[in-house]
């Protein structure tokens, strides 16, 4: 009961704090992805109260925002979805390409094909998708999507696959030797067959990889590199591998929603995160590279040399930025994905 009263009191205090802020900013972002320290810095600098709501998949975010009336100002979709958001008229043209801090954006990220001239988006983080294996259980070669699609015996029944459709389709396409986004029906048929055959060897299709790999519920999983870094720091035997068939590169980007109520604060935020020190602060939390030059000197030590963050030179050519495929191919992907869900 006392806790209840204390909670109510706290709540009242919190709301009175709100009364003094210049405004609000409502961020809709991936779970566990936003550095509380950097947010605090932003809140203090501009006297803005920031709220953060989590989502765990691009689809959820898109569906929610399309519905409208979310109350969010900012969202962080992945690059494969950015064209959809732009096309559907969900984002405001805030022209980050002309903002003060834009000069800090690394040249390779300054003019991407998913947002030429950076009219809508600011890079938040970029990374890779690969395979994470608990090498205590399996010591064989792991730099292949075969871990997922043709699981070795030691890992059978212990593999997780993160249920992000585009990532899985990319991986499977590469594994059967196809090109990204190919509409070759023969290749897609092989993709479908490979996936359906592989599924019995998987134990789950979940996002919660860090904790479950750590607890031993999973022994291998497809995963994002930053997540893999966190897992290795908790258990050195868990390692990240770049699949030799080709691995995906992704980039998450900050957009301002068309229905945003706090547009000025949202623009301030877009500019704020292009500052090298702030970008490094964000990276230190979510453990992924940002696209901002000059942030290196502010990055935490364990990230400066981590193979998960700094791609080794020999595997660099194998990486490809994932694109949104044509509507026909996306449609086929959705059909294959549904068939996979049995």
């Amino acid at each position, binding site marked *: 009961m006392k806790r209840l009263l204390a909670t109510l009191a706290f709540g009242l205090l919190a709301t009175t704090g709100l009364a003094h802020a210049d405004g609000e900013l409502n961020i809709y972002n991936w779970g566990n992805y936003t550095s509380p320290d950097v947010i605090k810095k932003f809140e203090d600098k501009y006297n803005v109260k920031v709220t953060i709501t989590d989502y765990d*998949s691009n*689809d*959820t975010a*898109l*569906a929610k925002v*399309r*519905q409208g009336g979310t109350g969010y100002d900012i969202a962080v979709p992945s690059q494969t979805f950015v064209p*959809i958001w732009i096309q*559907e008229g969900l984002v405001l043209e805030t022209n980050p390409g002309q903002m003060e801090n834009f000069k800090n954006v690394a040249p390779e990220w300054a003019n991407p094909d998913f947002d030429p001239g950076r009219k809508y988006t600011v890079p938040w983080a970029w990374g890779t998708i690969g395979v994470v294996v608990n090498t205590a259980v399996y010591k064989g070669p792991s730099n292949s999507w075969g871990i997922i699609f043709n699981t070795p015996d030691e890992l059978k*029944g212990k593999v*997780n696959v993160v*249920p992000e*459709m585009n990532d899985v389709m990319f991986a499977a396409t590469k594994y059967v030797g196809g090109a990204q986004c190919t509409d070759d*029906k023969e290749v*897609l*048929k092989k993709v*479908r067959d490979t996936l359906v055959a592989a*599924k019995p060897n*998987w*134990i*789950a*299709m*979940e996002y919660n990889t860090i904790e479950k790999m750590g*607890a*031993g*519920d999973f022994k291998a999983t497809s995963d994002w590199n930053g997540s893999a870094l966190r897992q290795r720091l908790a258990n050195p035997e868990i390692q990240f591998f770049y699949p030799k068939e080709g691995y995906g590169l992704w980039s998450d980007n900050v957009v301002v929603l068309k229905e945003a109520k706090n547009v000025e604060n949202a623009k301030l935020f877009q500019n704020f995160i292009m500052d090298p020190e702030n970008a490094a602060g964000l990276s230190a939390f979510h453990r992924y590279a940002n696209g901002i030059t000059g942030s290196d000197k502010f990055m935490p030590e364990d990230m400066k040399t981590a193979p998960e963050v700094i791609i080794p030179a020999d595997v660099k050519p194998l990486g490809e930025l994932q694109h949104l495929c044509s*509507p026909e191919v996306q449609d*086929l992907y*959705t*059909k*294959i*994905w*549904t*068939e996979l*869900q*049995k």
Partner: protein
Amino acid sequence: MSAAERLREHEKRDIRNRWLLSAPALLIILFAATGPLLIVLAYSFLTPGQYGDVEWKLSGEAWTSVFLERDIFDDTLSLADAHVTIFWRSVKLALMTTAATLILGFPTAYFIATRPENKRDLWLFLITIPFWTNLLIRTFAVLQIIRNEGIFNTVLIKLGIVDAPLQILFTDTAIMLGMVYVYLPLMVLPIYASMEKLDFRLLEAGYDLYATRFAVLRRIIFPLVKPGVIAGSILVFIPAIGSYVAPSVLGGGKNMMLANLIELQFGQGRNWPLGAALSIAVMVIVMIALLLYVRNAGTAETRHG
């Protein structure tokens, strides 16, 4: 006005008052519970939009997709076995959960009903507490116990019964365990309500006539508490078949039940009409179960007047 007319006036006014009194409840439920169901029915006849939501074009695709699927590459029509598998898993698990809760719950209800009267409240209290604890918390508690590093496996390994942890989590068994745990009190309470009214002198009479304990159970106790058993079974079956939390938390995303399949259509599946159609299908199953209940409960009551 004659007395009869006055009575009828009074009755009419009474009925009108009753309608007025119940109006707010009916309106709220119409707005936030029943009404929207009609919209779901409507949506099931529309076409899916490209990135979710719907296009306002009529289409029977959604309903055909519930039962049949078109092969992606050669366009042949076949039974939608993804859906059938999930449908069957849901019905199977719901039935098994109902059976398990009945086996566990019936003796428990009997036990509470046979405690001395002044203690019964305490026992009821003990059994209701878990019921009023949040469903998610209880499912999570089961997760913690059955996972590879959880207590159950740790004890088994320490006792030397197994060498490696038993993989219980992420299986259908895990989902069933979660559902049994969560819905058990829902079975106990109605059965107890029936048993409370049981006249134990009938049991004595049975024993006086040299019946065995089992015969007494089968011929006297069970028929008399049947309404409670049926009520409990319905109270468990309905939430079990539409269960979302248990397969979500314990199933690992691989072992979907109907609720997860429906949710998928509003997410990555991007097929709202199919989601709507599946929801209606679930409703129909539940209605059938309820009809069976009403029929059975009716006959059960008339049997012993």
